[in-house]
């Protein structure tokens, strides 16, 4: 009997040690398994790319760009040429040196027509990239952009190895070779994707030996997995899920104000939403504060007026968007719906609170004579099958700076222009804001754009979210920053060898 017992104990100890060395993060399976490891792919596997690749600059504690692969940057007085000095001694996971050639390759491929990256609309501002020397890259813009470093702070603008990607600007590069803290071992977006610590990481020793990205599509299942100790971390807890972890010594709960938002989208080219009066009537029927409280809890949100610029952004403009049922009814009557309007809204549990938000709006809008019929859609593959396919549907966005989110979601040529917003005047104002070197004037221009979205846009963005995350108390080193700024390389798991 002794042998089997000893063997069992040894296996158990080995398994326990392996678990302690492994950081287990859930992956939301938003693209139903067709996720790509290429950071600019429309189906980017962001939990993986966040750890495999690095950016030129990343968000600092004050929300401004701070050094990452670029140590310093400067611009010409007209802000049309930006020079980035790169960190020396950085290598990719395959041993190749990181140079300015890789910067030029990684930035220029974002404009590829073939890849059709969601970053294309934003990054088209780049004319070309000059390799000044091995560690200096000069980005020449087509037009002035006073906040260009904010654009390369995007979580998808990662630096790839030009050689591994064969220098092909028009092909997806799915080698998984980056300069990030973890390197790819096993790629399985439908199951468990395995990463391991990169020994030559320029940022120093990485806190944990391995990372597992475990596909769990359902938020309740993710919560159950964290409670059962099958994963170590969970993003985006809903208000009612917070009490499951709060006060429990086995878990840490973090609440962070962010620019994340969950919203509803009306396609501005499709009936009846092609009439701006209908869109505004739906927006005016909402009591945003009550909605926020019902869906995200009293401390879980900050109200917004259907533009995506969050309260912490320097360009945010405050608008009065109080509920106005009579005004909504009047607009509907003008639009030819005096007897009421019935619309279908496609929803799924794709982002926290999306279904509840739809239910609350459904309840509030009926006072204005708007009947919203909810059509449940499976969360598996939602982004491919429903999002931007139906006329009225749910969406969710992570935090982005004002210029970026306005360009990425509302520029007429943007890949993720989900409202099919097609306004030449809006595009011209976006260009004008970028070209404006005076901060106050620039802020005024961004303010006009936000007001225009409230008046005539196709988005319903009632609140911006405070993100609430929970993780095992064994983890340390997770700063209270938005999700894409978490430095997983600094995370240490108690019991690990590091």
């Amino acid at each position, binding site marked *: 009997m002794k042998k089997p017992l000893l063997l069992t104990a040894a296996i158990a100890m080995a398994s326990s040690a392996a678990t302690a060395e492994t950081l287990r993060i859930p992956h939301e399976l938003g693209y139903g398994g067709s996720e790509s490891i290429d950071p600019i792919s429309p189906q980017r596997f962001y939990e993986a790319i966040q750890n495999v690749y690095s950016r030129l600059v990343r968000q600092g504690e004050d929300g401004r760009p701070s050094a990452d692969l670029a140590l310093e940057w400067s611009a010409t007085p007209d802000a049309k040429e930006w020079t980035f000095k790169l960190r020396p001694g950085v290598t990719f996971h395959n041993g190749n040196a990181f140079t300015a050639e890789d910067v030029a390759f990684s930035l220029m491929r974002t404009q590829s027509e073939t890849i059709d990256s969601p970053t294309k609309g934003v990054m088209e501002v780049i004319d070309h990239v000059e390799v000044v020397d091995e560690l200096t890259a000069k980005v020449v813009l087509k037009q002035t952009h006073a906040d260009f470093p904010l654009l390369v702070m995007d979580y998808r603008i990662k630096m790839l190895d030009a050689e591994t990607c064969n220098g092909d600007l028009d092909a997806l590069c799915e080698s998984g070779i980056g300069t990030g803290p973890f390197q790819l071992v096993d790629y399985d977006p439908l199951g468990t994707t395995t990463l391991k610590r990169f020994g030559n990481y320029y940022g120093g020793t990485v806190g944990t030996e391995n990372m597992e990205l475990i596909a769990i599509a359902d*938020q*309740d299942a993710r*919560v159950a997995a964290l409670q059962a100790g099958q994963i170590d971390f969970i993003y985006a807890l*809903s*208000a*009612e*899920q917070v*009490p*499951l972890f709060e006060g429990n010594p086995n878990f840490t709960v973090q609440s962070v104000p962010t620019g994340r938002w969950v919203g509803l989208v009306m396609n501005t080219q499709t009936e009846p939403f092609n009439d701006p009066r209908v869109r505004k009537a739906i927006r005016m029927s909402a009591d945003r504060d*009550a909605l926020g*409280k*019902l869906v995200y*809890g009293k401390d879980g949100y900050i109200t917004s007026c259907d533009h995506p610029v969050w309260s912490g952004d320097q360009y945010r403009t405050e608008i009065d968007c109080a509920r106005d049922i009579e005004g909504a009814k009047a607009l509907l009557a003008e639009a030819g719906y005096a007897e009421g309007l019935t619309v279908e809204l496609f929803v799924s549990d794709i982002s926290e609170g999306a*279904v*509840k938000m*739809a*239910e*609350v709006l*459904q*309840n509030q809008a009926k006072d204005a004579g708007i009947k919203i*019929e*909810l*059509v*449940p859609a*499976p969360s598996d593959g939602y982004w491919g099958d429903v999002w931007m396919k139906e006329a009225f549907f749910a969406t969710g966005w992570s935090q982005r700076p004002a210029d970026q989110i306005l360009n990425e979601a509302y520029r007429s040529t943007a890949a993720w222009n989900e409202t099919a917003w097609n306004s030449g005047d809006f595009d011209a104002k976006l260009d004008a804001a970028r070209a404006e070197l005076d901060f106050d004037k620039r802020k005024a221009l961004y303010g006009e754009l936000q007001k225009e979205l409230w008046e005539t846009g196709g988005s319903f963005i009632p609140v911006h979210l405070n993100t609430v995350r929970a993780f095992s108390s064994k983890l340390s080193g997770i700063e209270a920053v938005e999700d894409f700024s978490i430095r997983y390389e600094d995370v240490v798991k108690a019991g690990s060898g590091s």
Partner: protein
Amino acid sequence: MLKLLATIASKPSGALGLGLTLFHLALAVLAPWIAPFDPTAQNADAILLAPNATHLMGTDTLGRDVFSRVVHGGRLAIAVTFTAAVIATLWGGFAGIFFGTVGGRVDEYSMRIVDAFLSMPWLLFLLLIISIGGAGPLTIIPNLGFFYGVAVLRVVRGAAMQVSARDFVTAAKARGEALWPILTREMFPNLSDILLVEGAMRWSWMLLAFSSLSFLGFGATPPTPDWGLMVAQERGLLSTAPWGVFWPCVALSSLIIGINLLADAVGKALGLDRATAVAV
């Protein structure tokens, strides 16, 4: 009928089954007068309240009164599944009587098709149909009626084969009676008890199926108060606010148990023993 009810009520299990079923039917009919609140009314100041004097079963994540939602929660499910049970019993019963009476190759070949349908994972098949045709009663009722009717067909056909071998059917055939009079005058009256029991059984199973569909997001749609949907929406709160899941489960279970006990009691009162019946 009164005699049958009296026989059913004479046994404790029968009385319980009859009582639970009638209680739920009454609740469904009288829900608008019984529920103290509008079951869809949201209240931002009353989110997840524990059961109290105002909200007897507490409130849910949108501040809605759980008692009012539970009281209303069976209306759609009962309406949809009862209609589907009638359809299943009618078409399955008639087809079962027909094939059991006709026999021969027609029966043999038809039963292979029936076997094929019975081997299908019907819930997945139903999900496929709903994802194409859309959720809602108009899609769900005929499909539930069809799938459960296949099982009714199988059971009734077995019983019909036994009846068709009896002397009075043989005599009717010898008299030269046409098929239709034999089916309606000789066979049906002798199988109506089985049809009644089968219909009740399938109804209870359909209730479970409809609630499963609602749980998966393919049955009732928000904000309809529906037991399956309520469980789906509140299932993440079992450890902090269990009342949102507990009461719909109690309501659904008690109705299903009630119908099953009633079906058992009806069977026994009519001289049928479900324990020895063919399980399908």
